């Protein structure tokens, strides 16, 4: 119990940072895809992993995950602003993560294909394990509810099931794919219900409850680490902002938005923490700290040079060695 409270406190810090950072990115870049409202799902999913585990976060809100892996905030901010200090020299989309931190990079933006790439990282773990090389790394991958309808979802999950790969598939279900509401593309009872067809565990969790997400994912991670194969978890949350920063999202009902605003995952975590004895001052200081860190990063990074001809890398399509 105490342990869970301290996990929540730690997750809360990341969730706050996620919110503040996402807002700043959205302000800086009208084409940013804001994760506001989905912080509990994102942080809860990727919390408590080991550095040798591989993570493949969904394109919405991945920065906090990279930070949890040890990425440097200014370098990520550099990616949003198109500056030379980014991890990726401005080449892929800004939401691409640093592969050196065992992150599956977003090298393209067609949704779904990276699911089997993530499964391939898990295959690497299995491949070593099967040879007797000690390796109990796991892969955690998130993807959208819209993405779950791509053929690649099916192929990747089935492959992972058949090969019993150490991977956890987590659907970051925010109820929308751009302007389309979930019932336009999913009519089954849930996305997690698809798990049964692959012979793997499937579970729906409240995606606005960081602890619930953490519990479910950690159970699946343990299972994967033990060599018992993949799981599919669906975290049900809500996209509080537009599809991208400038999208006013007029296509969705106002009362729906209002309902989900009342379920804000940060409010929820704060209540839980208050109940566990955290005082207002300490909670407020977390937000202040996040705001200061993010503001400072943006300020510093704005001064840096934009990417240019050196970063274009005219000769770098191939590795030469």
């Amino acid at each position: 119990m105490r342990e869970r409270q301290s996990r929540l406190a730690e997750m809360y810090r990341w969730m706050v940072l996620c919110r503040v950072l996402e807002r700043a990115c959205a302000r800086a870049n009208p084409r940013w895809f804001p994760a506001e409202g989905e912080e509990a799902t994102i942080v809860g999913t990727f919390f408590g992993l080991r550095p040798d585990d591989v993570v493949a976060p969904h394109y919405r809100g991945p920065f906090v995950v990279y930070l949890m892996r040890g990425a440097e905030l200014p370098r990520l901010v550099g990616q949003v602003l198109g500056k030379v200090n980014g991890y990726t020299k401005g080449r892929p989309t800004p939401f691409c993560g640093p592969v050196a931190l065992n992150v599956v990079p977003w090298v393209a933006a067609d949704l779904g294909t990276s699911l089997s790439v993530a499964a391939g990282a898990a295959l690497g773990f299995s491949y070593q394990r099967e040879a007797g090389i000690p390796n109990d790394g796991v892969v955690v991958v998130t993807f959208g509810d819209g993405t779950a309808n791509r053929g690649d979802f099916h192929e990747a999950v089935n492959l992972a099931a058949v090969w019993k790969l150490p991977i956890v598939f987590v659907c970051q279900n925010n109820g929308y794919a751009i302007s389309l509401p979930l019932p336009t593309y999913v009519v089954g009872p849930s996305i997690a219900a698809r798990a049964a067809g692959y012979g793997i565990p499937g579970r729906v969790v409240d995606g606005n409850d960081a602890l619930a997400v953490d519990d479910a994912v950690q159970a699946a991670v343990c299972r994967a680490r033990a060599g018992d194969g993949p799981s599919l978890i669906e975290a049900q949350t809500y996209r509080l902002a537009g599809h991208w920063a400038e999208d006013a999202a007029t296509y969705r009902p106002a009362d729906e938005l209002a309902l989900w605003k009342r379920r804000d995952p940060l409010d929820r975590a704060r209540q839980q923490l208050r109940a566990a004895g955290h005082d207002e001052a300490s909670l407020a200081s977390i937000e202040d700290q996040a705001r200061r860190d993010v503001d400072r990063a943006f300020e510093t990074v704005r001064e840096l040079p934009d990417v240019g001809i050196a970063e274009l890398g005219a000769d770098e399509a191939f590795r030469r060695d």
Partner: protein
Amino acid sequence: MRRTFVEAIVAAIADEMRRDERVFMIGQDIGVFGGAMSGTKGLYEEFGPRRIREAPISESAMVGAAVGAAMFGQRPIVEVSFGEFLPLAMSQIVLQAANVHYMTAGAASVPLVVRTRLGDGPYHGHPQSFEAWFPHVPGLRVLMPSLPRDAGRLMRAAIRDPNPVLFLENMQAYHAVREEVPDEDDPLPIGTARVVREGRSVTVAATGWMVHRALAVADRLATEGVSVEVIDLRCLAPLDLATLVTSLRKTSRLVVAHEAWKTGGFGAEVSAAIAENALDALDAPIVRVGAPHLPVPSTKALRDLFLPNEEDLIVAIRRVLNY
């Protein structure tokens, strides 16, 4: 009425849908949202959910389902939001849509339009230009207009054509170019290129946004007495070789330009067709202008360095002129 590139396309689709009850659309966010980059604006309001059908993110099934519907009597238009996603529907386009008429010995055909967005543009996302793959494929028509009225007229032709048509819309031109486009326009015969500017010194055969760059370059070089003829290829398959050869008989010099990667790009086919059929017309090498052999970068600053620009065109033109 003066219309932008995308407005001309949407107007053409609306008109064809009024004309032919069998025409309907499948895509994502094509309804209330009005389509990526306003690409279907107003259609949902007029035609409703039956004819403007939202689909799950399943590019392969969207095209496959359209092939099936087309084979059995309808005339669907599939909107693949961006050209970056064409690879996901590759088999449906290349091995299903394109094969049906031939493989059924003419017993069936597939009056299908697959429209998508290529090139750079205000959106700056999904900037792949994979058009070169498709003229290689028998049974497919491949259209790639650069001017609003052509775009509208070619969309009309695409919808009426009994064969599968890949309709490639340049994102840069989407809202940037505007011209007079009559309300009730005629379809443009598929398979014709267009001389958009006459000249005597050199022919620039271009597609998409490079047509606009070529026109700008023609203006710039005119002041030096270099007279550039600009051809908008418009139809990649079938290619209008006759218009090209006619032009070359006059200019004797050819530059081919597109935003896609130069190596293995559509420019290769244009160049090879000339090297095979009209070599005697040439007084200089055929120079191709295209993107360098690098994956397409995302950041605008890099994209601007990556994409071929007016300077690249001028270098190429000078090379063939000074040969």
